[in-house]
């Protein structure tokens, strides 16, 4: 089953990448771009009986490795 783990910085945590990209977009002429935030998506296959089990696996993996919960939030989608 295909699982997608979406990992983004917690609200309020500085996003240096987003900040730099926003700046670069402005100098490329995209002045209207704002609130740029950069996140990470991890797509993977897991062996699971059903969607619920796959989601649980995804969450376990996020907690164990894919996300750094001190500064990041995550959510998991199951794509069947």
């Amino acid at each position, binding site marked *: 089953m295909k699982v997608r783990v979406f990992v983004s910085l917690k609200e309020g945590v500085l996003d*240096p*990448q987003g900040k*730099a*990209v926003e700046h*670069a977009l402005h*100098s*490329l002429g995209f002045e209207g771009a704002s609130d740029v935030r*950069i996140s990470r998506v991890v797509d993977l296959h897991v062996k699971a009986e059903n969607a619920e089990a796959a989601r649980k696996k995804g969450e376990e993996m996020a907690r164990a490795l894919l996300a750094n919960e001190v500064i990041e939030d995550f959510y998991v989608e199951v794509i069947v």
Partner: protein
Amino acid sequence: MKAGIVVFPGTNRERDMAQAFRVVSGKTPQMLWHQQDNVDGFDLIVLPGGFSFGDYLRSGAMAAHSPIMKAVRRFAEKGGYVLGVCNGFQILTEAQMLPGALLRNAGMRFLSQDCHLKVEGRDSIFTSGWTHGDVFRAPMAHGDGNYTAAPEVLDRLEGEGRVAFRYCTAEGHMKDSDEHVNMNGSARSIAGVLSENRRVCGLMPHPENLTEEILSGTDGLPLFTGIMEALG
């Protein structure tokens, strides 16, 4: 020879590069700020190492779109010489002035250690200080040095003698799959490449840091003496 070194926000090996040129020529190249939109009057433009724009998004991506790179591209199209080292190589691939791309190192760690390089490129001022097949030592210092390109691009580079340098053992053996030799996992152990007209060269390791005996050796000198001899 008149050389210019481009400084982007976050560039950090411009002084090292200037020092290497000073060692061979006695002259200090001029520093060029990234917002400059013209590089006329130079014989060689150097894109040095560092973390331009923090290496955020992708290494070299933001620098590749800065005003000076438009000028550098025009300069190269008119036959000017361009050297990109480390971040400079990444910028040249992002600007598509050299083929391929540099991905995260295979081991996912920043690599700061000496490697050995075999000189393979032909007919270029960037390799002319060595004899074809020579092996030399150079420090590397990068997180994204894993060279990749489509197989047909790699074939073409090899066929045209445009692979400038490859990672190898001290004895000159190549082992693509050995992480002690091809440490960052580059396709076909490629460490540096040349443009079609051989006037643009990019490589990951830092010959500029090995140009004086007191700084642990002079293995990197031939890059600079070769350039000096060609461009006067």
